């Protein structure tokens, strides 16, 4: 993983995290928005400008790849590099979560 990817994506935005998390199964932008809304009980509602911008940025950086088009919607899936970035981020969040738990005890 090169320095640019690390600098831009570790740590990453909530939007970026949910995109990678959801794209372990192929999906399109609006599909991700709906899934995230369901996963977070409506607390996180991603917006289309943010989604479109993030998807094109992540595709350019090789974190996700285009699979096929369906009714004018581009379907993407995560790449190997994307998986690596996601697992780094998950590790970081788990560490944060442990610290939160410890602080609460």
């Amino acid at each position, binding site marked *: 993983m090169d320095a640019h990817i690390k600098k831009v994506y570790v740590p990453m*935005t909530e939007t970026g995290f949910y995109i990678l998390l959801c794209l372990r199964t192929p999906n399109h932008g609006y599909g991700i928005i709906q899934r995230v809304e369901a996963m977070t009980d409506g607390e996180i509602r991603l*917006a*289309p*400008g943010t989604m*479109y911008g993030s998807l094109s940025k992540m595709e350019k950086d090789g974190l996700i790849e285009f699979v096929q088009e369906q009714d004018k919607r581009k379907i993407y899936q995560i790449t190997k590099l994307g998986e690596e970035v996601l697992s780094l981020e998950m590790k970081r969040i788990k560490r944060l979560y442990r610290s939160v738990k410890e602080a609460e005890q």
Partner: protein
Amino acid sequence: MSTFKKEFRYFTIFDYEKEQDYLSQMHEHGWKFTTVYFPGIYCFEACQPEKVVYQLDYNQDGLAHKDEYLQIFRDCGWEYLMDFVGYSYFRKPAAEMKEDEGIFCDDESRLDMMKRIFRGRMVPLLVIFLVVLIPQLMRQLADNAWTQGTFRSSLFWFYLGLTVVYLIFFIRFALHYLQFKNRHR
């Protein structure tokens, strides 16, 4: 009473937030935005006063892949209106929103849009500034052009004026960028 109305408004390329507010206010007063054309003539049609959120995006990649780009906005309930000088115009009635909603949901993507405006609009200007304006001005300064004949001296003042306009433009952009960064820290 007329059912159409035109207004002249000048917004710079950094004033898209003001432009959005202006269009929302017009709609709330019963004037629905229909189109805008050069140099800033905004056209409206009489309508039922309503709270409607207007949003502008600047995304050249989106314009190049228009079908997918517009589809995701449509899926999210945003009506696409038109493109004007690189900006795409969208609107959505507030009644269809659960809470305050925009086409961006985090500051990172708002800043990304500003960077796209910078790359698309400011970089070409900066190149002209550095490659054409500054060398011209330096040459004329070296020749004492302002003392020589009407044509040479008016050319000198023209370049000087243009340089000042450019400088004001760049400073405004820098201030706008810094203000945004501070506001969202």
